[in-house]
């Protein structure tokens, strides 16, 4: 039902839709309902996504609404979940598997990298893989080991995958519609730390093409580049910096593969300075790619090297140290200061 209302009159810029107050976890749930209702080939499955509704309740009520043929639990085996998605796709379905937590994507990496990402290529387009892997991702919730990982660099480095990380509920809704409707495999990284933050949301149909970033705050002194939960942190930094008269632009990269080189270049060629922020460890993180792309495209405009504020090169720590591992507002502000003073 809801999805009919949501789609009603939903042109690319259906500003007419009334805003609703939703958390990201609810927005993703809404998107899944829309998708299950509009396309009988969409299947939602994974560990505990059925009766339980997922450990984050993202699939809450879906099995009741769409039945246990469309929304079902699997045994506890990540590699088989992704392998099953491949076979389902080869039988005409549009699989939307969930892996319960980022760190438990590792047991499925072989299927993701060696099979999902390559089947269209291997078969020269005969067997496309319209699979969207939903992966609760990133840290910030004081969870046990393996529940706070950032795998975007690995996915972005894998030819054949598209990768996206929404930063707020409205984005999550729209980007998930876009990901699932795409005929290519997409890794959809949901920032767990933002699951419960409620915002007034207009549920919109996708309009921006895959691979575009968005400026969430305009500014002129430097560009902060981030994705997932770090976008929110960068907005906080921008607020604080504004008090000191520093005017920061915040760019939500959102598509982590393909990366919006043009969007990055447009912003940084105006501001002349960039700081990229991510939760993953520094070395070989996606921040290096962002820095390289910015430098390649804006070399003459850059006042200093792109600053990277990231997790340290250490395994993701337990509760009390989490806040000291993740980029802090202070560390980002110091990086802004460094780039301004360069």
């Amino acid at each position: 039902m809801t999805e009919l209302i949501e789609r009603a009159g939903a042109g690319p810029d259906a500003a007419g839709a009334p805003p609703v107050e939703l958390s990201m976890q609810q927005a993703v749930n809404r998107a899944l309902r829309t998708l299950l209702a509009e396309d009988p080939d969409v299947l939602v499955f994974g560990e505990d996504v059925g009766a339980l509704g997922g450990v984050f309740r993202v699939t809450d009520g879906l099995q009741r609404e769409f039945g246990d043929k469309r929304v079902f639990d699997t045994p506890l085996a990540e590699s088989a979940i992704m392998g099953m998605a491949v076979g389902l796709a080869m039988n005409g379905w549009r699989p939307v598997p969930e892996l319960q937590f980022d760190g438990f994507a590792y047991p499925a990496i072989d299927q993701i990298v060696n099979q999902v990402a390559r089947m269209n290529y291997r078969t020269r387009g005969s067997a496309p893989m319209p699979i969207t892997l939903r992966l609760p991702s990133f840290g910030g919730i004081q969870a046990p080991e393996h529940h706070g990982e950032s795998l975007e660099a690995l996915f972005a480095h894998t030819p054949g995958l598209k990768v996206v990380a929404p930063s707020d509920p409205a984005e999550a809704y729209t980007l998930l519609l876009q990901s699932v409707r795409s005929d290519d495999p997409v890794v959809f990284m949901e920032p767990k730390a933002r699951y419960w933050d409620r915002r007034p949301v207009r549920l919109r149909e996708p309009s921006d093409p895959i691979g575009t970033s968005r400026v969430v705050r305009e500014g002129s002194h430097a560009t902060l580049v981030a994705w997932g939960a770090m976008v929110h942190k960068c907005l906080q930094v921008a607020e604080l910096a504004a008090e000191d008269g520093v005017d920061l632009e915040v760019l939500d990269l959102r598509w982590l593969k393909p990366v919006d080189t043009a969007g990055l270049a447009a912003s940084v060629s105006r501001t002349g300075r960039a700081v990229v922020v991510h939760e993953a460890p520094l070395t070989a993180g996606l921040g290096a790619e962002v820095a390289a792309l910015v430098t390649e495209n804006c070399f003459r405009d850059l006042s200093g090297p792109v600053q990277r504020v990231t997790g340290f090169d250490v395994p993701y720590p337990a509760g009390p140290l989490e806040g000291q591992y993740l980029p802090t507002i202070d560390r980002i502000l110091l990086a802004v200061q460094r780039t301004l003073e360069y």
Partner: protein
Amino acid sequence: MRPVPPAHASAAPEHISVDHLRPDLTRALYQAMRTARDLDAEAVALQRQGVFPAYVSVRGQEAAQVASATALDPERDFVFPTYREMASALAYGVDMVGYMASHRALWHGGLYDVMASRFGAVNAVVGGPVPHAVGWAVGERLRGGDGVALSYFGDGASSEGDVHEAMNFAGVFGAPVVFFCQNNRWALSVPNERQVAGGSVAARAEGYGMPGAVVDGNDAGAVYEATAEAVARARSGGGPTLIEALTYRVEPHSTSDDPGRYREDTEAEHWRVHRDPVALLRAAVLAAGHADEADLAEADAEAAGRAEEIRDGVAGAPEPHGSELFTHVFRETTEELTRQHRTWQEEVEL
């Protein structure tokens, strides 16, 4: 030792007997199970008070854990646990303040010394540590030792590829491993019927050419005997065994779980009331004349005291210092990490 189909709840007896066991053993089992029960309750309370961010209860699985760990020799064997082995750790002699520190999220693997305890770090990857037990056991044979590795895992874990690979390796290498599956009927929200094709984890053993045994996981004496037999076989070069201990997770999966969404409480209630392993053992110890009410009251008091002590220890333990982020990554640290440590000092520690 032939596998039998799992006999859950209804079929299982409401009494157990320990007449055939040594009194000092049954008293020790009772003491450890009782302590684990109290410590479990303390941990749930600590979670409610916000001291633990979350907790995974072992309630109802004390017999499976304590009796299996008691069948091992902590001087020469080695245990590879999951994230739900508190009662095993306790029975095996692990420093419990260090163990519970993992639930307080002070350090993911816990704060006990893994090598000195001969009890692996708390491991959150379902199935992941099972091949470690096989590696350890292969290594033990290679050096001519007679130690045995015991690998704990759940019914859900039995679906993971790593568990299969580990069992096949153990069979091929004739490694001294006891694969100890606590089938508590649930893997989070998924029951055995939708998890374990064929319905029996133990039945898999035959396919690897190893003995498989199903045991009543709430009967401490039965668990002890089955484990002791498997350990003796492994120790004497007879290779691996797979034990499936049938039990039940009476509590939610963790303190964050909401089991009302996926199961009837009557099932858990049945196990709580009629198949409580501590109560079953208590009655059996009395029936066997291994102890009287006064002895057990004393044991109960001691257990409560010990549990409180551990609770106070873990609640009061200091938080790790931020610089520990950098201390244990490598044995031989790198300049890169030293630089990052400095950044941390300048920008985070402030």
